[in-house]
């Protein structure tokens, strides 16, 4: 079971690299879908079965479809290299590496395996999440429904052609 996590992690990292490095937006979008599906498998390994399917249905199956539609409709072609200073490019990669090293050091040393053993497996099925959602978090739930309504209206108004 553990080896499955490492396989999915490697897949997710390779796909994330592809998202950042590809010149064509469509390939970046497809790689992002691969990242999301790999993360869904990792969620399953973490006993979060409901969130795994929600990730695939909502994030990979609806939000990314929106991205892919917009890329296809706008016919976003290949990205041309820009004309900014070479200094920024030569300085950028080592700085990113430094940031990555810094974050990894914190994450690796501050959470030792002994003091962070996994707790007892919690019931993360739809029933448990539903109960928590509608008993403790019912106010954020209602607020997000208003948020989605506002987003729908905003998107329709923004994307309309001015006739």
């Amino acid at each position, binding site marked *: 079971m*553990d080896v499955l*996590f*490492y396989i999915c992690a490697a897949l*997710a*990292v390779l796909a994330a*690299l592809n*998202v*950042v490095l590809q010149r064509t*937006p469509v390939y970046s*979008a497809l790689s*992002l879908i691969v*990242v*999301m599906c790999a*993360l869904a498998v990792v*969620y399953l390994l*973490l*006993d*979060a079965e*409901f*969130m795994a399917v929600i*990730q695939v249905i*909502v*994030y990979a199956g609806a939000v990314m479809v*929106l991205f892919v539609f*917009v890329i296809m*409709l*706008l016919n*976003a072609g290949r*990205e041309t290299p*820009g004309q*900014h200073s070479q200094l920024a490019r030569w300085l*950028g990669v080592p700085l*990113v590496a430094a*940031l*990555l090293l810094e974050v*990894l050091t914190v*994450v*690796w040393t501050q*959470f*030792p*395996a002994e003091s*962070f053993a*996994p*707790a*007892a497996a919690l019931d*993360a099925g739809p029933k448990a*999440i539903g109960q*928590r*959602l509608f008993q403790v978090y019912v106010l954020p739930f209602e607020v*997000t429904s208003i*948020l*989605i309504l*506002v*987003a729908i209206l*905003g*998107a329709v*108004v*923004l*994307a309309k*052609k001015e006739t």
Partner: protein
Amino acid sequence: MVPLSHYLALSAILFVLGAAGFVFRRNVITIFMCIELMLNGVNLAFIAFSRFLGNLDGQLFVFFAIVVAAAEAAVGLALIIALRRNRESLNIEDLDSMKM
């Protein structure tokens, strides 16, 4: 059992890659996708902690994060469509003035 630090390391790598892409890329849609990559990295950290601390609230936070990301993607992509219609360019270096 895979130790917690491994899950957090994966989350950190995804987040830093997303941040790097956000800073360096010039196509607006690709920048947006790097933001989604960062959000995914953070969601993974939440679910890992939820499992290791035995608390379901982490997964609920991810639920709300996904919903908010969906709303944000809808509005952001509508903005990009409107931008493309008015400026004819998806290159972020051309989108540098507020004048029409």
